[in-house]
């Protein structure tokens, strides 16, 4: 079933706990829900890449459904397969709901999306960038942050940095070149492999 490659491990850890939970063991039940929540979050996040805001809601909704419907679990079933079937049902339900709503409110939604677009928080990329920028000399870093990240014009950046426009241009040029070199090197010697999997 489509949990993970190691869902067998999850199942063998989960099943005895779940059976105890089914017969009324609260501690085991809490542990089960915790384990399932983690896996479900991963499962749903992979499938809701376009709407990350919905993931947590859907995880909670699925857990609630698992709780309400635990009478439909049968010991002959795999706990993870049963949980995934419920999660998939909730996922389809969400798509159907969104599809219908988006159809009804086509024009308004387009406007909303442009005005209130929710920036997906890409923590990983931000962190990588910060690490890379630390490898630059101060002047180059400042020039890149002002022009490329804050989006100022060269003239505005020069004013902010108290440098001439041509100096800013030179620093940006050198800084970008150096960043590129850093990225190439880190790609080859795996300086960033300690990055957390997202």
């Amino acid at each position: 079933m489509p949990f993970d490659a190691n869902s067998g491990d999850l199942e063998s850890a989960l099943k005895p706990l779940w059976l105890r939970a089914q017969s009324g063991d609260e501690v085991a039940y809490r542990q089960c829900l915790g384990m399932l929540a983690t896996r479900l979050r991963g499962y749903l996040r992979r499938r809701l890449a376009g709407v990350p805001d919905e993931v947590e809601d859907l995880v909670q909704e699925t857990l609630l459904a698992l709780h309400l419907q635990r009478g439909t679990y049968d010991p002959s079933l795999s706990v993870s397969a049963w949980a995934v079937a419920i999660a998939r049902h909730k996922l389809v339900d969400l798509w159907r709901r969104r599809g219908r709503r988006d159809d009804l409110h086509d024009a308004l939604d387009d406007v909303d999306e442009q005005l209130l677009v929710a920036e997906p928080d890409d923590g990983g990329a931000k962190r990588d960038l910060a690490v890379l920028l630390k490898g630059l000399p101060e002047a180059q870093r400042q020039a890149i942050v002002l022009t490329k990240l804050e989006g100022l014009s060269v003239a505005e950046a020069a004013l902010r940095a108290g440098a001439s426009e041509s100096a800013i241009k030179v620093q940006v040029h050198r800084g970008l070149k150096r960043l590129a070199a850093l990225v190439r090197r880190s790609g080859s010697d795996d300086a960033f492999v300690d990055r957390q999997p997202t």
Partner: protein
Amino acid sequence: MLARNAGPAPRALAAKRLCPAMAAGLLASGWAAIVWFGLIPWSLFGTPVPWTKMVYASALAAAAGWWVARLSRPAASVVHPRSVVIAVVLAMAAIGLVSWLSEPADRRLAALLGHSWLSCPPSVLVLSLPALAAALWAVQGLAPTRPRMAGFAAGLLAGSVGAIGYSLSCPEASAAFVAVWYSLGIVLTGVAGAILGSRVLRW
């Protein structure tokens, strides 16, 4: 936290919901059949006329009930109950075919159509409606992850229950008639269940 005071999980949930629902549906369809169409003469209860239909419809109801119960349970396999449902329908078709072929050729059309071939399927459908509502209610409280399929199976179950009710007031004697027109009425109820199921069976 959901785990607090959760207590043991309820057991045999599908049976607990489906059985009373079907008992209510059976009473409703039997009562409606007697009130609207009238009971067949008592003498017929000494012949196989009502019993063929009741045995067929009960077998189909049991198989469809098993199928619905599996469909109401996420990730449960539905292969076996589905095969049994198909097997019951095919068995009745085979019995009907044999009895039809054993009729003399000039009476075959009459054996197939009876007096009421046109009214039988809609009557079964109408008498199944209370059972259909009850079955959909029962399934809705469970966890059907394939609403349309679950609605269809619930419709077959309800149709079989309605057919048991209708057999109290249907005087047709031919097995071929039962195999064709009762099955058609039951499948019609199944289709109604599928249409309703995709709307009603949300949780």
